[in-house]
């Protein structure tokens, strides 16, 4: 799949809640096929503090509008700059990068688990799961009720199971404790979110022998497999999150026990 470097035009920058924004960007050329789980490297570069590109998951793709959407959480200077982008402004992207989630077979039971900004790729994945003929369930975790984002969007695609750490909405605790996750038989579980959450999901799936893929968010410099900065230890040695991932089957990961 050929990678591109292009100046996109911001068509919309919508604040979801708290520090979360969805930025819709239109491409100057017809979009190539973008797979669920792939990401883009965005050039912020507005000050010495934001020197490197920011890797951002593709949240959604609209081929009819020729746009892609990115879901961002303001965590530092780079994402803060992105949150302030106005319609009409340009954003340079290198894309589509990385591998993708393995889509289910028709009729399989599928659970997509995520939390916070890790939900970014799960929306597009959910749409592709439906196209594959499976029905997606979402297990989404948040700190508390006021931090919940995007649940209406996800409800349009499938069933949503919520967990909050303080119990102010849905199950009290982490996504791995949600009864639907624990009790139902899943053919596939996908996860993207905080590393501790993904490790807990992975442990549960390995224990129950469930196919499980996670999307990692390791720090990157190049995004194209040249710098070898974003490696993750796997059964095949250190692999690049940017080119061998970001999606990995948890069976192949050799995660260290400490986060």
């Amino acid at each position, binding site marked *: 799949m050929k990678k591109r470097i292009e100046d996109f035009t911001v068509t919309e920058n919508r604040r979801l809640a708290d520090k979360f924004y969805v930025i819709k960007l239109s491409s100057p050329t017809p979009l190539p096929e973008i797979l669920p789980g792939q990401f883009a490297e965005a*050039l912020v570069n507005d000050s*010495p503090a934001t020197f490197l590109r920011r890797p951002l998951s593709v949240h959604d793709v609209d081929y009819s509008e020729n746009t892609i959407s990115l879901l961002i959480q303001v965590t530092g200077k780079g994402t803060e700059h992105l949150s302030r982008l106005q319609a009409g402004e340009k954003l340079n992207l290198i894309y589509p990068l990385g591998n993708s989630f393995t889509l289910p077979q028709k009729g399989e039971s599928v659970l997509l688990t995520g939390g916070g900004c890790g939900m970014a790729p799960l929306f597009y994945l959910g749409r592709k799961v439906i196209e594959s003929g499976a029905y997606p369930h979402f297990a989404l975790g948040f700190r508390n009720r006021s931090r919940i984002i995007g649940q209406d969007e996800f409800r349009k695609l499938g069933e949503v199971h919520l967990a909050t750490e303080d119990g102010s909405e849905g199950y009290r605790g982490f996504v791995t404790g949600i009864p639907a996750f624990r009790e139902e038989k899943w053919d596939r579980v996908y996860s993207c979110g905080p590393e501790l959450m993904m490790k807990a999901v992975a442990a549960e799936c390995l224990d129950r022998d469930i196919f499980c893929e996670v999307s990692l968010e390791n720090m990157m410099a190049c995004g194209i497999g040249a710098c070898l900065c974003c490696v993750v230890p796997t059964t095949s040695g250190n692999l690049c999150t940017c080119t061998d991932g970001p999606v990995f089957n948890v069976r192949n990961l050799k995660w260290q026990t400490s986060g």
Partner: protein
Amino acid sequence: MADLRIKIGSLLFKNPVLMASGTCGYGSEFDDFIDIAQLGGIIVKGTTLESREGNPYPRMAETASGMLNAVGLQNKGIDYFETNIYPRLSQYDTNVIVNVNGNTVEEYTELSRRLDNLDAIPAIELNISCPNVKRGGMIFGTNPGAASEVIAAVRKAYRKTLIVKLSPNVTDITEFARISEDEGADAISLINTLVGMAVDAGTMKPKLSTVTGGLSGPAIKPVALRMVWQAAKNVSIPVIGIGGIMNAQDALEFIMAGATAVQVGTASFIDPRTAVNVIAGITSFLDGRGFATVSQITGIINRN
């Protein structure tokens, strides 16, 4: 159009712009963005005799106008390189140079001997300046006796163009430039990364698994420029300038300070087309100022 060709040792380069080791993979990572054959050359990933896993993650931290890395020479070793990478590299119509690393003088020489037999590799860059390995690397590049010994040994083992990549983590760069020349190097390239570190005040931990790493990017350009200028004044072999080159103007500054050629490194992470853009920018500068060749401006600040 100005003539950009340059010569290092007996080796001709179509222009003075190369991509630096560790920032261009094995070239193919950039095939979607540029035609590698337009470059003067590429210096592929640091290679060792045996396969290496490198340092644990995290091995990168962003810093003001730059980045720290502690990759630690992750590579699959010379056997894998020869079988799986070299055949494809030999198709590139440009100078493909291998960056050579080892723990001991014997490892450096053995690897150099192996590379001497690969026809499509016309030169090596002897890396005595990697700051991210426990043994070898920078230890050779910061100790005059050790530098002298390893360069002399490799010179005996390697018949083609030998470039020595110098460390900036020394008191007097001219000493190592002269040692390289005296021991038979055809050129020197500098600077490798500057040893630095970063701390996360939030987690109260170092940002790199190795604590310290190598700083690159525009943050180091003034230091690099100074060292290239000093080195070029003290040796008669060509100097290849490296350090924070983001565009043609940066590259021209290095050439004017005495560099015969330059390497684009970290900038390729920001824009993979940088090196090719630098070539175009140098050409248009020379044409605009009426210079017929790039060599006319090499070291020109010393004459102006």
